[in-house]
Structure formats: C-alpha cells, structure tokens
C-alpha cells in the first residue's frame, strides 16, 4: 500500500521526468513520455492502492473519505455506547418494577385469600352454633332452640286451658256452696221460729203459773228458764246469721273472681301459640337460608383459593420475563461490543483491507452469538410446567 505522501512524491518525480524530456527531446518523445508516465502512475495506484495517513491534511479525496469513515465510526461507537447503556438501565428498571409489583401482588393475593378463608370460618360458625363456637357445649343449636320454644309454648297453652277448666269446675262448686248456704239460712229461720214459739210458750206458762198461785211457783221458775233458753237460742241464731252473711259476702266475691277466670277467652293462648309457631317456622326458613348462604360462601372461598392458585401460577411470568430480559441485556451487550469492535477496526486505520478484515471478524462473532449462548427459558405460555419424579 502506498501512502499518500509517497504517491505525491511519485507524481512529482514523473512530472520532473516529463519536464526534462519536454525540454530536451523531440515531440514524439514528449508524447511517449507523457503516455508512459501516465501508465506508471495508474499502475502504481491500481497495483498498490493509496492509503490515508493519520493527521494528514491533504486534499486527496481518498484520504478525506478515510478520515470521514474513521470519525463516523467513532461517532457510531459513542452513540452505540450511550444507547446500550440507556437500554440496559431501562431494562433494569423494568425488572425492578416488575419485581416490586409482583411482590406486592402476591402479598395482596395472599391477604385476600386469608380474609376469604376467615370469612368462610365465620359463616360456618354462625350456622353451626348461632353466634357461638360450634365446639362450645353451652351454645344452643338453632333447631334445638326452636324445639324448646315450641315445647314451652305448648305447656303454657296446656296450663292455661287446664286453669280455665278448673275455674269452670269451681263455678259449679260455688253454686253448690251457695245453695247449701241458702239451706242453712232456711234452717236458721226455722230455729228462730222455734225460739219465738218457745218464748211465747214460756210466757203463757208463766201466766198460767201466776194464776195457779202458790202451787204454780215452781212452774213459774221453770217457765222463766225456758224463756231464757229461747232467748239465748235466738241470740245464737242471730250470731250465726251474721257470720253466714259474712261467708255469703266472701263467697260472692270468690264467685265473681272464679267466674271472671272461667269466662276469660282462652283463644288468646292458642293464638299466641300459633303466632309463635309461625315465627319459629319463619326463623327456621331463615336459618335454612343462612345455612345455604354459608355453603355458598364456602363454595366461593374454595373458588377463590383455586383462583389465587391460578394467579400465583400466572404471576410467575415475572420470573420468566426477568430471565428473558436478562438474556436480552446480554445480547444487547454483545451487540454493543460488536459495534464498538467494528468502529475500533476502522478508527485511525491506515490499512483499509486489514480494517475490513478485523471488522468482518467482529461481525462474525456477533452472528455466532446465538449458537454460543443458550437461553434456558423455552416457555411460550403461562400454563403450569411439567412435573417428573425420578
């Protein structure tokens, strides 16, 4: 390869040679000299080529292209470096953003699942124990509660009806007692009449005794005693009547109370029982609905668990993507290295053939990159991978 300096010296030499020939020789030689010189210069340039030289300030167009190419390559290297560094930084940011988001999402999904499971536990405990722990012996099951309430209502109605029946029986007894009291009153009237008559008889006997004079004196004493007896009998009879009147008053009040109880409408008890039974039936329906709802919640919780599992499988895209991004970064790095290598091959090169050969080597290394670096991520979808036990 001729440097541009040597090429210029060659041209200067042949110019001097042509000038000498032109000065001394015949015209035919002059023409011949010009032709030979032109051929030599052309041959030298064609055979050896002309190279640029570093730091040269030349007007030679070839040297200008070479310097331009070198500068272009330097620019390419710098731009490649900047772009590659930026891309690497951006991919790193993508990886860290993904990492952060996925960690958050996993925590969210876990918490969501935990809350749904707790909700399921609560729903089941409500249905099993009606607001208490199902394992607690003190808590009463809802069905048991309904049956207890129903039994209590039945015994309440039964005792109310039996009270009513007893009161009716008492009314009859009270009538009998009243009749008996009436009879006693009749007997008392009889006793009073007897006493009155006895008193009269005693009075007559006293008169007759007085008329009999001394002979009737003893009889008069007897008649007087008989009269006293009749008066005491009358007094007792009056006392008995007074007591009988009090008994009568008490009986009358008792009669009123008993009659009030007996005549009370017992339907209210039956109606109350029916109402409570209706309420219980409704409560039972609600209870069944609650049990159904709890089973529904249970089924949903199971579904949520399976959905969370699916989400956990899908969220692993981050691991795969990060690995793929990592491999893309390695490739990007290699691409940048290639660009830097090619640029360096031309930067300040004086021998173009050697520069091209070096650049070709770099490009080949870049082309062969795929075969030398294996990417382990072969997954094409997010469906769960194979499992093999040895």
């Amino acid at each position: 390869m001729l440097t541009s300096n040597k090429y210029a010296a060659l041209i200067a030499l042949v110019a001097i040679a042509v000038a000498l020939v032109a000065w001394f020789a015949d015209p035919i030689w002059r023409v011949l000299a010009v032709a030979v010189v032109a051929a030599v210069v052309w041959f030298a340039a064609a055979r050896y080529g002309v190279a640029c030289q570093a730091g040269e300030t030349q007007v030679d167009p070839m040297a200008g292209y070479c310097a331009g190419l070198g500068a272009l390559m330097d620019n390419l290297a710098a731009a490649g470096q900047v772009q590659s560094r930026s891309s690497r930084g951006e991919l790193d940011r993508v990886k860290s953003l993904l990492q952060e988001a996925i960690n958050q999402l996993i925590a969210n999904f876990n918490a969501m699942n935990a809350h749904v499971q707790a909700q399921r536990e609560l729903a089941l405990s409500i249905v099993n124990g009606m607001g208490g722990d199902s394992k607690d012996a003190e808590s009463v099951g809802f069905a048991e509660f309904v049956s207890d309430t129903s039994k209590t209502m039945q015994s309440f109605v039964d005792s109310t009806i039996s009270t009513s029946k007893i009161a009716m029986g008492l009314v009859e007894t009270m009538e009998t007692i009243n009749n008996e009291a009436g009879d006693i009153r009749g007997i008392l009237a009889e006793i009073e009449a007897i006493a009155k008559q006895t008193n009269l008889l005693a009075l007559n006997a006293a008169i007759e005794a007085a008329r009999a004079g001394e002979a009737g004196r003893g009889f008069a004493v007897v008649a007087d005693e008989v009269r006293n007896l009749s008066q005491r009998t009358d007094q007792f009879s009056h006392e008995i009547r007074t007591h009988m009147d009090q008994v009568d008053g008490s009986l009358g009040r008792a009669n009123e109370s008993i009659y009030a109880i007996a005549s009370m409408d017992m339907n209210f008890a039956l109606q109350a029982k029916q109402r409570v039974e209706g309420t219980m039936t409704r409560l039972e329906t609600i209870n069944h609905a609650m049990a159904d709802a709890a089973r529904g919640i249970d089924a949903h919780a199971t579904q949520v668990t399976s959905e969370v599992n699916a989400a956990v499988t899908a969220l692993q895209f981050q691991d795969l993507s990060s690995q793929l991004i990592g491999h893309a970064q390695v490739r990007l790095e290699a691409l940048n290295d290639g660009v830097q290598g090619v640029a360096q091959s031309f930067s300040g090169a004086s021998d173009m053939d050697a520069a091209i050969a070096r650049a070709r080597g770099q490009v080949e290394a870049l082309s062969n990159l795929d075969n030398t670096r294996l990417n382990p991520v072969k997954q094409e979808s997010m469906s769960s991978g194979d499992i093999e036990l040895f």
Partner: protein
Amino acid sequence: MAKVILTVDDSASIRQMVAFTLKSAGYEVVEAVDGEDGLNKARGKNADLVLTDQNMPKMDGLTLIKTLRGLPQYRSTPILMLTTESSDAMKAGGKAAGATGWLVKPFDPQKLLEVVKKVIG
C-alpha cells in the same frame, strides 16, 4: 412438628410464592437466595425437603444437589428441582446429580403441594 422445607431461588417472588403455598399447607419454610446460601442453610437446619432452582449466581442447582448428596444427613433427603429449564439433557443431569424430581416453572401451587405431599407426606 411441622416438616421443614428449604426453598432455594434467586428470584424473591418465586421464593415468596413457594413459601406462601407451603406455609398455607402447614409446612415450615426456610428461604435461601442462591446455591451457596442454600448449602449453608441446609447445613444449619436439617430440612425434610429441598426445593431448588437451577440457574442462580454463586452456585447453581445441580452443584448444590451434588454437594448436598455428599453430606451424610442429605444422602436420602428428597430434593426437587424447580426451574425454567425443561430440556431432557438438563433433566438427565439432574437425575445423575441425585435429584428426586423435576418441576418446570411456572408451578401450579396445588400441583406443587401434591408432589411435596407425595415425597415427604
């Protein structure tokens, strides 16, 4: 007492997902960030099962398995590989190193639990 499972993976999210899945089933989980960390933690605590990734910095999964198999207490402990690698050559390498099974990512939590239950009950 809960069985101890050692999960070795350089990806924090995978460790988190594996730990969440196994803890919810009542296992105790120890996490390690690479093969070397895994080896240290395996030495420190006798794990009932080791679940490891393949490609990790410092020490890869196959090396970890080979090293663990050299320790007396890990001669017969189940070791499962959980990795993105799915080539038959890698699986054969795992089998030769002494792995009990090979799970390809992404894993399904339900299936992971089934496999774990199968190998350690």
